């Protein structure tokens, strides 16, 4: 960072992480300044969701440094980690609403658990957050009465309840109809600007992402493969980027799962059965 440049809200240095013996992230470096909307893209199993886990302290890096707002997440004790998480928001892939609570109670949940605010103030705050996502009228409904897009918006209202500095979105567009995708995309953009947040979106939906993101990072083989603007992504002739952008079934990300040669396997099966 140069003199006068804002401190990064996310700073990952040479991060290695994986499950069992298998590394997923292998020397990942990434810096995200405050206020930015960053889209993280990559194939399935490339470590995008693991990255969110590392930032929220749910995963622990094998090595390297994960800093969020200057704090080394891997070295925080439980109370320090929870203090940090109070300033983070996360939208889970399918919302993760509490199914035994109404929409109102879901959004009120962080206030009731984390603050000593009187119920009248909580009511006003909840209605304000629900108004921000356009669902004030749905306050008395149960999660089972909501469509997928509405549930995602309620979860978004709950995630921004305590005005987080960093919002993390795990596949926010998955399984939504085009109208809902547009609504969620615009909400992410508007909330980021209105509340002065920083947003990190893990997604496969290129069209909506390129419309709202300031920057796109593509992860491959555990590292940042490309770090570019949405305009660069549209113009790129990189085969990997084009496969993503054009939804091509085969390319650098192969269609076939690794297997022995097809003919060899068929002949071997035939020989063994005769």
């Amino acid at each position: 960072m140069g003199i006068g440049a804002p401190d990064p809200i996310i700073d990952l240095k040479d991060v290695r992480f994986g499950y069992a013996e298998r590394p997923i992230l292998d020397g990942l470096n990434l810096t995200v300044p405050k206020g930015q909307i960053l889209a993280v893209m990559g194939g399935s199993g490339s470590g995008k969701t693991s990255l969110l886990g590392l930032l929220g302290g749910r995963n622990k890096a094998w090595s390297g440094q994960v800093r969020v707002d200057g704090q080394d997440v891997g070295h925080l004790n439980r109370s320090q980690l929870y203090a940090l998480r109070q300033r983070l928001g996360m939208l889970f892939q399918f919302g993760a609403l509490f199914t035994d609570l109404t929409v109102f109670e879901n959004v009120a949940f962080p206030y009731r658990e984390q603050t000593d605010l009187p119920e009248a103030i909580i009511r006003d705050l909840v209605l304000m957050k629900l108004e921000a996502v356009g669902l004030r009228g749905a306050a008395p409904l149960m999660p089972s009465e909501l469509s997928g897009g509405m549930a995602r918006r309620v979860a978004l209202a709950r995630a921004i309840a305590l005005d987080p500095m960093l919002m993390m979105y795990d596949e926010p567009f998955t399984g939504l109809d085009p109208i809902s995708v547009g609504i969620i995309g615009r909400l992410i953009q508007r909330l980021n600007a209105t509340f002065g947040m920083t947003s990190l979106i893990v997604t496969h939906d290129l069209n909506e992402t390129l419309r709202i993101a300031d920057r796109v990072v593509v992860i491959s083989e555990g590292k940042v493969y490309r770090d570019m603007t949405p305009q660069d992504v549209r113009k790129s002739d990189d085969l990997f980027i084009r496969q993503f952008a054009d939804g091509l079934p085969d390319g650098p990300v192969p269609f076939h799962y690794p297997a022995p040669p097809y003919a060899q396997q068929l002949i071997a099966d035939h020989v063994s059965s005769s």
Partner: protein
Amino acid sequence: MSHLLNLIEALGAHVNRLLARLGLFARFSWSVLSVIGICIARFTLLVREIYFSGVRSLAIITVSGLFVGMVLAVQGYEVLQRFGSAESLGSLVALSLVRELGPVVAALLFAGRASSAVTAEIGLMRATEQLAAMDMMAINPLARIIAPRFMAAVVSMPILAVIFSSAGVIGAYLIGVQLIGIDDGAFWSQMQASVDFRIDVLNGLFKSLIFGIAVGLISVFEGYHAAPTAEGVSSATTRTVVTSSLSVLMLDFVLTVWMFRGLN
């Protein structure tokens, strides 16, 4: 030879997995017990869970207790009358219920009715990332979700055992006194004379408290560690019922030997 080696290897792997799971259970139990204070401070959460686990089990506990008491009266009378001591029916029924059947059958019914539901609920919360969402909101799911459900089992179990035994005594009274015609006074006075408060009632209550701790811990452990799939939740629910039932019966034997070893 290779078959034998394979068998030994499989056995070793099985024992290894079992020990690892026992270790996980011990660590998890300690984590739950360490947040009990928070759970007690959030009394409304505890009351809500006692309602769902305990109060909603009242019907099955009461009806089962009534029928077990009735069966005890029929069977007991049939044996006692051969020795001319049918009046001891009250004593037989009360001791059977207070010492053994009340705590044990109530615990088995509780495991089937309430604990399986707790496991399924927690397992589904995990599968739908509700526990992860709570954790990311800096709210400890162990304190907010797990501990109240565990404590509800601990509080409910002795009360349910008392209700089961009381219903059983009433059932035996209906059959023994009202139907068969055993003397009313003899039925109650024999019971009063033979049931000791410390040896029988308190020991029975202590047993049900231990069963409550065991069943409560098993149900929340299985739910919390259920694989986040439909099959995972289903298996966890089955494991809760099977493990809880076996644990109750095994603990009952150990506690009975320990409590009544010096009495004869």
